């Protein structure tokens, strides 16, 4: 069943960035290439480029976030755009003003782009379906569904360290069930042609249906990490402990926490990633998090370049061979 992809305009170019799923490899590579061109900006004395001068970008965060919002804001400023941060606790919308009322208000301020984070899956799609046609929407995380810019900055980090994607084995460890980051990473990795994507964790966090995403499921981390090139640890939300999903942090760390011993099972040059913020001693030990194989802080700085790339592309900037992307 062929559906219109709401993310693309009639020319097949990215208009919204809501989800990695359903995008062609060329589009993803184009984002990575564009991000590469922005990494040099950091090194310059003047960090700004005038690509989005006169554009107004609204950070619309219905869920608290520090890191993601900061990097989006920095990315927008380095592109010379005007930015507005709107933090809305979800209770504010339930007190009468509907989400659509709020969007209409913001549209009336002549904004060009919404960066949206929301606790409900599909929220960014909903907003993209209802905004005026000239406005682009970037999904900065919707429920358990998607976090596409995080996935792209992870891909960027992997490519910088490993070069090509084709022969890699990548393991994602932790709470896949509730993770929007994991879903987007899986789609990005499979789209970019990674040979083998593994997910590691107990059945309570990795339902059997996860295999339908094109991944191999491991419940034993000692098997799952064998010979992998990239280890991605997911943040374990504290509230998972209060439900019946896991018995304790202690047992979770014992079974799935990334310690130097477990990391030794992976390839010697394997890199360790984490979308942050990390829970030391829960999903990862400090030795590993601060160790030589960790690229966690690099991910953060790469986040700015990748978000600059996505914002520029959505606002119509062309980089390299983008025109071929719709083939």
């Amino acid at each position, binding site marked *: *069943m062929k*559906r219109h992809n*709401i993310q693309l305009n009639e020319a097949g170019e990215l208009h919204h960035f809501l989800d990695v*799923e359903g995008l062609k490899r060329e589009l993803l590579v184009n984002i990575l290439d564009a991000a590469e061109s922005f990494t040099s900006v950091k090194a310059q004395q003047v960090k700004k480029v005038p690509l989005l001068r006169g554009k107004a970008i609204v950070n619309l965060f219905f869920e608290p976030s520090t890191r993601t919002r900061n990097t989006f804001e920095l990315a927008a400023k380095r592109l010379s755009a005007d930015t507005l941060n709107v933090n809305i606790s979800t209770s504010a919308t339930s007190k009468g003003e*509907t*989400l*659509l009322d709020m969007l209409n208000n913001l549209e009336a301020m002549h904004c060009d782009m919404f960066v949206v984070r*929301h606790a*409900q*899956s*599909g*929220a960014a*799609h*909903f907003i993209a379906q209802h905004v005026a046609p000239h406005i682009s929407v970037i999904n900065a995380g*919707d*429920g*358990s*569904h*998607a976090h596409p810019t995080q996935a792209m900055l992870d891909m960027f980090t992997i490519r910088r360290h490993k070069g090509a994607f084709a022969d890699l084995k990548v393991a994602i460890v932790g709470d896949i*069930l509730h993770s*929007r980051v994991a*879903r987007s990473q899986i789609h990005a990795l499979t789209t970019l042609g990674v040979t083998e994507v593994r997910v590691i964790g107990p059945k309570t966090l990795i*339902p059997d*249906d*996860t295999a*339908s*995403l094109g991944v191999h499921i491991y419940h034993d981390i000692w098997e799952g990490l064998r010979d992998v090139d990239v280890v991605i640890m997911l943040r374990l939300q504290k509230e998972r402990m209060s439900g019946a999903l896991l018995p304790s942090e202690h047992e979770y760390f014992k079974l799935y926490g990334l310690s130097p011993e477990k990391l030794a099972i992976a390839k010697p040059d394997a890199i360790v990633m984490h979308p942050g913020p990390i829970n030391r001693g829960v999903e990862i030990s400090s030795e590993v998090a601060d160790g030589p194989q960790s690229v966690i802080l690099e991910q953060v700085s790469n986040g700015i370049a990748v978000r600059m790339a996505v914002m520029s592309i959505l606002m119509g900037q062309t980089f390299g061979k983008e025109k071929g992307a719709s083939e």
Partner: protein
Amino acid sequence: MKILIKGGRIIDPANKLDAQHDLFIDKGLIAAIGQAPDGFSADQVIDASGQIVIPGLIDLQARLREPGQEHKGTIESETRAAASGGITTLCCPPDTIPIIDTPAVAKLILERAKQTNRVHVLPIGALTTGLKGEHLSEMHTLHEAGCIAFSNSDAPISNTLVLRRAMEYAASHGLTLFMHANDKWLAQGGVAHEGPVGLRLGLAGIPESAETVEVARILALVEQTGARVHFGQLSTGRAVEMLQRARQRGLPVSADVAVHQLHLTEMDLLDYNSYCHVLPPLRSQRDRDALRSGLKDGTIIAICSDHQPHDVDAKQAPFADTEAGISAVETLLPLTLRLVDDGLLELSEAIAKLSHGPAKILGLNAGHLGLDGRADVCIFDPDTHWSLQEDNMQSQGKNSPFLAWDFKGQVTHTLRAGRLSYQKPESGR
């Protein structure tokens, strides 16, 4: 008032009738089929040539939203919509505001329905007070006030002892229970079928076991108490299997299915279409096929609309923040006729699922066109092509995933107790 319905093809599954005949109605009853009774002179003649005349439809579950949620629908608006869909009898579940756990609320609904005078409305009483699952309602008193059956609607009865007592008490008085099989804990927080699609979309899942575990619990108690239980709106193939085995063993159980479950699946959620947000959720294609087979083999005896009209705002939000349910009385017949076009059911079988089948569950002398029976009749043109649009919907709720679908077969007249309750505008006949 004497009415002659002339020249239609009469299909009456209960009486195994399928032939072209005239139908004569007098004093609200079926006076004759074929030959006019002595001295019959029609006050009104309805030309039904080229059309199909069937028993008025009986809908086992339709929410009218009154009392309590008149911004979504009223007894006036929703019975008008139901009549336009060929429905002459419907059951409304007890989750109105206030809840149907006192005779006063039941009587209020019956009174309003009588005033609007379009559909026989049969309230279903609350099985426990306030639907809280703690204290038995006054079932006998509610029954006397007009409640046709008893249900806890979508609210759980977590305490199995309360459930057992409720079933025993109902069984003592020969009352039928309508159960919605949904284990509260397994379904907690869920908004979509637990499966590959829900996982991909990041929507919290309601597993198949939320239905099967509850069906198993209830079946075990049916065995013990002898209560007569009807399962409403089954959604999984496994539950159909369980029902089939229970019926083979002679347990007094039956089941219906909501018509949308026979046409939509989890795949329809892929663009987060909130009109496809229903409970129980749209499940896999395998489940849909099993529900269809259950319908064919008789395990599922009725098709209902599970009508739930909503205001616009209720569906305008990210998927999980929207309210569940479809405005469905107007598509009950056309979607059931599609099952005939799909080759699943014979036309008379399909009609039985909307008339004779539900009448049996309710123990009503209705759903047929037998002599001296009440003249509840639906006439439809099997060849009219039409498409559902917001502005041609009669219901106050326009929340239908079937908007813009093309249908074949449209109701032209509905008669309730021998009186026109709906006539298609400019039907051109």
